[in-house]
């Protein structure tokens, strides 16, 4: 038993563990700081108050000096986003622990016209989680209490600053699991997930947060606490307000508590990693997987060869297969391993016999599955080592899912880029597509945008499938939303936050 523990450590060491990496790289700000957002992009500071000593004193009186961070070095990591695309210069980070404190902070900021940037785990990929100028950062990192987990109903109630992985570990003790899973789970907060309506790796099976969030507690810009914290599966009384806050990226209110519907942790998990010749073959395999794995299919992801290189070259991870133009991960969740394995093996044997797939490996050993998942989950991290990443997250009709990559390669053929590639949630029609370059360049940016958005819009896709609009995309929102719907969004914003203190410069044009 003891060796069991020691070996776990050793094996983890050997595979230079991932979660730690994620946390570390987030905190490790070396020479490569992005230029200040206000200089790189042409944005004008809103007419908000400039923070005074008196303001700061109010926060210190409210939270105590240890929960008000003003030291510039310590402020830095709250000012730069995870993929180092944007940088603000806030000099005040607030760390409330309770809803009441959040309410007091917002009421004060609202009265004094102080702009506020809500921040969870700061893993957002569209520049929404860091200040653009000097907004006060309201970090939920100390709002990390889990209040209850109900074994029978599967309902978890917690504060919004709980880290997703901690929630998942707590649920495991009850035979449950979190309804979403993503590469950032070691750092992202459930409040951040709710606010971005994060999708993740198993949306295909477990649906999105509009389905699994049962209730929320939210604080409005003026400090009023709105109790929407239902734990009921069914509740058709009036308008379904919680949905407004799911995916509104901190622009309508601050999420303080979350009630989540959590599925049972599957007893049987199997994972296959496959090598394929072409995107055609991927489509055929997807279709077959849906038909033949049906109710046990829990994830279906794809990675192209150039993307896998960021894991093998930049992060030195090992791929279990030799090289192929495309790769797929197919995962099953079920209750009976014999049944699942038989189904999966039959599916794979047929696929190999009919030459849909060229090679592959399958496993249900926990650690082997983790290593294979690393090849998918650590892509975002691996990409950052290329230099600057222009990152896009679009939904496209499934037949056209991959077409954007060759189109972009053609368009940028003469530009100085490191890599143009795509991977993503194939089962959901959501591709993560990126161009990396050694450093940021306006010229390159102009070649990519708005071209990608036009391309997506022409195919009636979405210019942001799951990462949101944040700071990077407000001016492109019209590619996916009609002017009528943008108008209503603006009206709602004015109603919830008349002075626009919550996450300004984000989401709405």
């Amino acid at each position: 038993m003891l060796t069991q523990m020691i070996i776990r450590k050793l094996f983890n060491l050997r595979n230079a563990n991932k979660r730690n990496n994620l946390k570390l790289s987030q905190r490790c700000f070396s020479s490569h700081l992005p230029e200040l957002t206000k200089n790189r992009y042409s944005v004008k500071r809103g007419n908000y108050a400039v923070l005074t000593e008196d303001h700061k004193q109010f926060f210190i009186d409210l939270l105590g000096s240890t929960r008000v961070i003003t030291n510039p070095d310590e402020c830095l990591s709250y000012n730069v986003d995870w993929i180092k695309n944007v940088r603000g210069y806030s000099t005040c980070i607030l760390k409330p622990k309770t809803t009441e404190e959040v309410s007091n902070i917002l009421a004060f900021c609202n009265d004094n016209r102080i702009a506020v940037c809500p921040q969870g785990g700061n893993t957002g990929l569209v520049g929404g989680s860091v200040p653009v100028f000097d907004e006060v950062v309201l970090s939920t990192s100390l709002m990390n209490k889990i209040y209850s987990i109900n074994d029978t109903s599967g309902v978890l109630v917690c504060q919004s600053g709980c880290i997703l992985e901690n929630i998942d570990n707590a649920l495991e003790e009850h035979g449950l699991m979190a309804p979403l899973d993503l590469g950032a789970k070691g750092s992202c907060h459930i409040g951040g997930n709710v606010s971005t309506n994060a999708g993740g790796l198993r949306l295909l099976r477990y649906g999105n947060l509009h389905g699994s969030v049962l209730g929320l507690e939210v604080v409005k810009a003026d400090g009023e606490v709105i109790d929407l914290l239902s734990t009921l599966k069914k509740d058709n009384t009036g308008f379904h307000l919680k949905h407004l806050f799911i995916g509104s990226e901190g622009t309508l209110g601050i999420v303080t508590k979350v009630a989540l519907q959590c599925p049972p942790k599957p007893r049987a998990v199997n994972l296959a990693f496959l090598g394929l010749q072409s995107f055609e073959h991927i489509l055929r395999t997807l279709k077959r997987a849906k038909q033949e794995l049906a109710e046990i299919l829990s994830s279906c992801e794809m990675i192209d060869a150039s993307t896998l290189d960021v894991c093998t070259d930049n992060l030195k991870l090992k791929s279990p297969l030799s090289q192929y133009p495309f790769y797929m991960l197919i995962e099953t969740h079920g209750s009976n391993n014999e049944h699942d394995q038989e189904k999966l093996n039959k599916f794979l044997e047929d696929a190999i016999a009919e030459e849909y797939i060229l090679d592959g490996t399958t496993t249900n050993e926990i650690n082997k599955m983790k290593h294979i998942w690393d090849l998918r989950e650590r892509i975002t991290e691996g990409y950052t080592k290329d230099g600057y990443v222009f990152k896009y997250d679009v939904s496209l009709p499934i037949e056209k899912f991959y077409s954007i990559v060759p189109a972009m390669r053609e368009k940028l053929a003469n530009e100085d880029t490191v890599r143009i590639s795509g991977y993503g949630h194939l089962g959901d029609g959501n591709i993560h597509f990126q161009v990396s370059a050694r450093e940021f360049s306006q010229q390159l940016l102009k070649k990519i945008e708005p071209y990608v958005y036009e391309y997506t819009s022409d195919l009636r896709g979405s210019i942001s499938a799951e990462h949101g609009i944040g700071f990077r995309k407000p001016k492109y929102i019209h590619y996916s939303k009609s002017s009528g719907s943008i108008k209503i969004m603006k009206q709602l914003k004015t109603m919830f936050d008349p002075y626009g203190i919550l996450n300004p410069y984000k989401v709405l044009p």
Partner: protein
Amino acid sequence: MARVLVGVKRVIDYAVKIRVKPDKTGVVTDGVKHSMNPFDEIAVEEAVRLKEKKLASEIIAITCGPAQSQEALRTALAMGVDKGIHVEVSGPEYETLQPIHVSKILAKIAQNEKIDLIILGKQAIDDDSNQTAQMTSGFLDWSLATFASKIEKGEKDVTVTRDIDGGHEVVTLKLPAIVSADLRLNEPRYATLPNIMKAKKKPIQKLSPKDLGVDTTPRIKIISVEDPPTRQAGQIVPDVDTLIAKLKEKGHC
């Protein structure tokens, strides 16, 4: 070219949290994820590499245990082992199966199969005995190198680098010999689909300890299995001075 025997044991997956049975007779295994003992996987990988280098002619994997143990054999076959032997031991007999019995079984099979080299995991991560390689060597009177981090096979001998405290020891053994594998020996491969499919057609021979003339009467009695003591919760102190004061108070400095 050598004929190689590897032992594979099905154990609770090392990533699973272990729970002790309430009556303290052992740990909960029902409904718990099992996998091949990681050290055995390393042994299998090493044998397969020898075969790929044309230094081994045939690899046989053996497992002792209930029906489910065949999973470990199938994994080994998919990694490149040629043939499996399943010595079926189940129920209470398996619960009290001990290294001495397994060693006798291994020794017998090594003789029957005219084995030149046995590679075993240095220990199984469930009972942590670290005895099987040693005892097998005793029964066969073959030379033994434990804790191998490197194996180089010659014509009539095998040179093994051993992980020892503070360094390495290099020993050369005459064949036939036994080597036990340590963590650093290699990184096991993933079985690929074509090989998993091929493995289904590879033979698994079923035997019982009786067929091999091995008596499995237990020699050791387990009195009680208990959780390690839980660590006491830490305490957060506001500053260094308080820390030093506390440490002094408890006589630590």
